[in-house]
């Protein structure tokens, strides 16, 4: 598969390219790149990207925390679904169990601090990546690398010291998760001396291109019932 230039620059050791190889076709990549963040279906990520882009239009800590919450929702759902599927074994199952509990704790922490301002959890379709150990491993590498880079981009925008301290605490845990799964995937845990941040618009674009975030299927109708009566 071919990644767009912005992602190739970030993905120096091809971990993301390999991870999303199955879920991201060249056509989808090009479509996502051409459409831009405003057209993405990942409404929470894209909306927050517009509201508080790191380029300078920051609107406050709430937007940053909701963005972080969205990323944590994705990870928590991914690991929880994998654990429930029960197809992982050995060290990979241990990683999913421990990291999934961490991600759920992160979700709980953000929801607690945001209260009624917390965005709702999106719906997900992980497209079989939680049900195939090889696909799980690759996707987990990508998620953890993305989380680390996304936190790095957003942490400097936080203004309240309490939020900053918590975000730093979570960021380092995400980095440990990334190293852990990279080790299990046979990828160098620390690929370089300096990590780069990944702007949220680019994170949104990448997440959208996976098509993991979906809308709830329409299961409520208003048509006349054809039921037997």
């Amino acid at each position: 598969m071919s990644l767009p230039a912005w992602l190739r620059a970030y993905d120096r050791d091809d971990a993301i390219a390999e991870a999303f190889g199955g879920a991201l076709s060249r056509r989808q990549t090009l479509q996502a790149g051409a459409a831009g963040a405003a057209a993405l279906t990942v409404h929470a990520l894209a909306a927050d990207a517009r509201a508080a882009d790191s380029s300078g239009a920051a609107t406050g800590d709430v937007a940053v925390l909701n963005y972080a919450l969205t990323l944590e929702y994705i990870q928590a759902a991914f690991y929880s679904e994998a654990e429930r599927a029960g197809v992982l074994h050995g060290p990979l199952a241990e990683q999913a169990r421990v990291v999934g509990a961490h991600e759920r704790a992160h979700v709980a922490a953000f929801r607690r601090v945001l209260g009624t301002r917390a965005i709702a959890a999106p719906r997900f379709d992980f497209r079989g990546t939680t049900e195939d150990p090889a696909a799980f491993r690759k996707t987990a590498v990508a998620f953890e690398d993305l989380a680390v880079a996304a936190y790095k981009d957003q942490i400097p925008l936080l203004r309240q010291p309490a939020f900053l301290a918590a975000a730093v605490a979570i960021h380092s845990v995400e980095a440990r998760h990334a190293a852990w799964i990279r080790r299990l995937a046979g990828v160098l845990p620390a690929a370089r001396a300096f990590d780069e941040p990944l702007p949220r618009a680019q994170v949104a674009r990448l997440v959208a291109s996976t098509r993991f975030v979906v809308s709830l299927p329409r299961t409520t109708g208003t048509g006349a019932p054809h039921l037997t009566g």
Partner: protein
Amino acid sequence: MPAGHRTRLLALAAGALAGAATVASSLAGSHVGPVTPRAAAQTIAIPPPRPLKADPHLVRWAPVAAATVAREEPRAEARPVAVVARGTPEGTANVVLVLGRSHATPAGVWLRARLPGGRLGWLPRRALGGYVVVTTQLVVDRRRLTATLLRDGRPVFRAPVAVGRPSSPTPAGRFYVRDVLRDYRSAMYGPLAFGTSARAPGVTDWPAGGFVGIHGTDHPELIPGRVSHGCVRLRNPDIRRLGRLMTVGTPVTVR
């Protein structure tokens, strides 16, 4: 951990956070100021990680993303069981109840599912959308003429019902709620109707295949009773209440 050791560790952590805050402040170009130990103590309370609960009442359903053929075994050459469409006769998304899965193969994962019509079959994972989980279950007792909704195994709703007459009985078995219909113009179904995956055996010529519903009525005086064409009828206040408690994907046991 000894209390003194813990206090020293917390102090060290607060100092490290103060340094991080200073760096972050300079990166952001805004005035934040160093994080004091007091500020660090006011940080977000991160709850302890908790393992997933083993929930015996949790079931998952998935929408049909692409029309497909359900098969007797998890392989493309196996005997077909049923054609599974993307939509229902009411125009809503078709859904199946997911019961299990095959091992990952080069051709992908297959899922064992309960299908519309009551049969079981294997579907390719790629034909389905994302999972949704529910912890509710509806039990329809044809002898006692009651419907009971359980949440996490505990009853949260019970109401009298009318079921199929002897010539068109409500089928016994395990089914699930496929969709919810509201705001239609048909008084005989009351204000709300749940479509289920069950098919009434006595009405094979019914439009759209004769699927069994759970709905209200314009003849509440017939409840409880055995008067329907296979559907489960509730009084309108009861179906409204059930509409607030039961969601699509809820397993339905008729006994």
